[in-house]
């Protein structure tokens, strides 16, 4: 019986692992290094049937197997056959996940694991025992607890009330000069090979504490040299040790009261002698000299040594190096050193295995998605939704808004209904503007601030009655805003009902100078005036119509049940055919609103943008007794402001968004939004200056730009109110 190692046939005996057969053939699964043959190290890992870093000691030999040794230096070549499709639907992944819920999962079927399982069963609990010898490669333990297991045919997710880690302890590997030679075995490995009938030749056995180094010839061990200076020639060196290394990697992955470690895996063993030479981390080929080097550079903590030297980040995840590294750090620091944190995965996984049943966050489609696609829209992802970026000619869309009438799908806006006896009090505390004086049927633009006074969202407050409001939020901020409102209402103990209507209501923005005319054609005799809203019927669809303006033109948002979105959209498009009605996408919308100087939260703002920094102090009423963020705003109002969002204009085409803003040779900020405005006849921008004193003239894209107060279009707002 044979398999192929590199390009040579290797004979094996029934029952051999690949590693045993390779050693039997006088070879090494890698190019050298101590073998333990228990899966604790990475020194036998090789490419097996196209899967790199496979532990050959745990891989049964079988006919036709193709084993390739990894290069002596560097990583094995990336396998791209078949080609990887990184955006393929997870449903297309070949590896499936099976799930099981049990009372107790015991990892390890040795003495302590068997005892733990028996005790749990005696207590009437359902037990699942997982062990590598049973075909269960436990690759990670997560909070929950959740145990992730790799099996030959699938991945297994074990949800257990309790996890018992009983993985035992491993033999220590030698760390000394010559420890990457071929022909070095742990005592256990030697026993296993002998039991398989492998001839080890002349054997020199040495205890770890007595070992000085290995001498070699042509990459193979030739002699063991002890600390007393004696040398013993050999074909095979066998290293014994009284101490051991707990197999506690899984335990170090998770801090969960429902995960416990028993048996040798939980014990504290004496550390080996402090390493002075050789490879301390065979997986990553890290020497003691390398570790000393990062230590001398100031990385004087075991977690830092790990990250700086990459010691313990290889195939065995510290299985070999941990005790030696702890001995090193303990010696250098003079203080006992605990193991570094463990992280999944403890075993190498293929991409398909790692990605099995892992899903991207889903992106919602509005009810009008099909309409957009049919109109030739280029769809893109914004704020958790698929949205039309443009319909092929965004300037045509721009002019439709400025000169005629256009539709925008704003179904993605966050929408809450709030009601209750304390609702005014709640909104007064939430928003920095006044709420109580909003009359039913009227609405107001509002900012949403956090406790630090930083802008987290914006939107509209529409009052429907004395004790009922509709709140809107940005598309991307809707989820946070909903949680924000709920949390504060609960914290304050106010009597308020909250219903999230974001996914229940579609919304179409009818905008442009002909928007009112279009609505009249569909039965709206008297469209609401600016900042008014009311419930009405449009083309037979019940709508909550809000008059506002983000585009700078007269705009009517029609909020309606999404089951009727298509009906309403088609009716509007049909009624506006002779007006040359054209839907607009986000690209045009961003340009239109920029001409008006309207900020987009998260695009123009930063995480610490206060209303003052974005020039929106007018939306904050500091004479209110309290609102979220008021204390912080009052404090920082006394301090000089070192950053601010400005409007800029300059001749020529607009620079790219993100372009640096210079004063002289100094970068003082960046362009947040930009557009070559036909209305303004020049490039208009919003951008940050973060150096004081703020300049009136800056350089962007090698050209002179001037600070200009937005809006850049219709500064009186006459068109929006028309």
């Amino acid at each position, binding site marked *: 019986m044979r398999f192929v190692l590199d390009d040579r046939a290797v004979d094996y005996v029934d029952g051999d692992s690949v590693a045993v057969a390779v050693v039997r053939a006088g070879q090494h699964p890698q190019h050298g290094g101590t073998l333990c043959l228990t899966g604790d190290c990475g020194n036998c890992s090789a490419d097996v049937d196209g899967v790199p870093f496979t532990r050959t000691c745990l891989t049964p030999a079988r006919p036709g197997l193709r084993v390739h040794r990894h290069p002596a230096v560097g990583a094995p070549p990336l396998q791209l056959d078949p080609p990887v499709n990184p955006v393929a*639907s*997870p*449903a297309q992944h070949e590896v*499936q*996940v*099976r*799930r099981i*819920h049990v009372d107790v999962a015991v990892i390890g079927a040795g003495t302590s694991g068997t005892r733990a399982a028996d005790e749990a069963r005696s207590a009437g609990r359902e037990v699942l025992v997982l062990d590598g010898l049973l075909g269960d490669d436990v690759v990670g333990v997560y909070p929950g607890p959740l145990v992730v297991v790799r099996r030959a045919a699938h991945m297994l*997710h074990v*949800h257990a009330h309790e996890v018992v880690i009983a993985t035992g302890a491993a033999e220590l590997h030698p760390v000394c000069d010559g420890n990457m030679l071929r022909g070095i075995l742990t005592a256990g490995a030697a026993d296993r090979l002998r039991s398989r009938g492998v001839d080890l030749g002349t054997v020199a056995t040495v205890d770890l504490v007595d070992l000085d180094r290995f001498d070699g010839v042509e990459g193979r061990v030739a002699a063991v040299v002890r600390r007393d200076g004696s040398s013993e020639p050999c074909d095979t060196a066998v290293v014994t040790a009284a101490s051991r290394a707990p197999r506690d990697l899984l335990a170090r992955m998770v801090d969960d009261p429902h995960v416990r470690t028993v048996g040798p895996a939980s014990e504290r063993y004496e550390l080996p002698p402090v390493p002075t030479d050789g490879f301390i981390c065979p997986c990553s080929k890290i020497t003691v000299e390398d570790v000393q080097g990062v230590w001398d550079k100031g990385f004087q903590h075991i977690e830092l040594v790990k990250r700086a030297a990459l010691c313990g980040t290889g195939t065995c995840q510290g299985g070999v190096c941990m005790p030696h590294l702890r001995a090193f750090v303990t010696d250098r620091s003079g203080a006992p050193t605990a193991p570094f944190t463990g992280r999944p995965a403890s075993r190498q996984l293929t991409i398909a295995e790692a990605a099995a*049943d*892992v*899903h*991207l*966050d*889903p*992106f*919602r*489609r*509005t*009810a009008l*998605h099909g309409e957009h696609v049919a109109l030739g829209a280029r769809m893109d992802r914004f704020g958790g*939704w698929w949205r039309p970026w443009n319909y092929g000619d965004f300037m045509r869309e721009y002019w439709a808004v400025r000169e005629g009438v256009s539709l925008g799908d704003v179904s993605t806006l966050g929408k809450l*209904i709030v*009601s*209750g*006896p304390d609702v005014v009090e709640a909104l007064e505390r939430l928003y920095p503007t006044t709420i109580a004086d909003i009359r039913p049927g009227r609405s107001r633009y509002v900012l949403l601030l956090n406790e630090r006074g930083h802008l987290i969202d914006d939107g509209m407050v529409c009052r429907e009655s004395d*004790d*009922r409001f509709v709140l809107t939020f940005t598309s991307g901020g809707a989820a946070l805003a909903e949680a924000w409102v709920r949390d504060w209402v609960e914290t304050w103990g106010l*009597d308020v*009902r*909250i*219903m999230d*209507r974001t*996914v*229940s209501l579609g919304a179409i923005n009818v905008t442009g100078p002909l928007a009112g005319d279009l609505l009249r054609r569909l039965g709206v005799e008297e469209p609401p005036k600016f900042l008014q809203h009311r419930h009405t019927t449009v083309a037979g669809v019940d709508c909550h119509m809000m008059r506002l303006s983000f585009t700078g033109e007269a705009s009517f948002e029609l909020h309606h*049940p*999404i*089951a*009727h979105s298509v009906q309403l959209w088609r009716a509007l498009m049909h009624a506006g055919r002779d007006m040359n009605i054209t839907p607009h996408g986000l690209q045009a919308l961003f340009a239109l609103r920029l001409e008006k100087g309207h900020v987009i939260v998260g695009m123009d703002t930063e995480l610490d943008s206060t209303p003052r920094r974005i020039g929106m102090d007018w939306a904050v009423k500091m004479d209110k007794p309290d609102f979220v963020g008021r204390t912080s705003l009052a404090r920082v109002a006394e301090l000089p402001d070192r950053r601010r969002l400005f409007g800029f204009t300059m001749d020529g085409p607009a620079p790219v968004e993100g372009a640096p803003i210079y004063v002289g040779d100094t970068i003082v900020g960046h362009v947040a939004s930009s557009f070559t405005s036909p209305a303004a006849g020049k490039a208009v921008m919003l951008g940050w200056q973060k150096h004081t004193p703020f300049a009136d003239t800056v350089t962007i894209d090698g050209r002179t730009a001037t600070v200009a107060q937005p809006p850049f279009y219709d500064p009186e707002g006459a068109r929006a109110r028309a």
Partner: protein
Amino acid sequence: MRAPERLWGLRVVSTPDALDHAFYEGDVVVLRIASDEVLAIGAVHAELTDPHAIVEPESTFIGWDLTLQEFEQVVARHVEWPLPTGRPALAQGLIAGIPLKLWFEHDRVLLISSNGLVHEVVDRLGVPA
């Protein structure tokens, strides 16, 4: 497997006590999706003692009516969390990364998605569109 259907009804937010004693007109399946919120599938009218209750028509939810066998074959393997054993029962959570609801009756399971995520449910679970 049957094609999905839109689930018309009412969504109601009110005090827990008022929801406990609410009356819904019609052949209604009442799903208590939160302590203060109900999705009443098939309802056209709700009577509650809470004058501040929010009662709104709801049409965003789409449902796949599955046999137990279809549920086991198509959905169950994607569920990370323990399924309820009582019947009827409501369960909510991520399934294949999508926020979904499950309404278990004795011999059927209603898989419920919001309208905007139907395409993901179809893609990830393989249910009919």
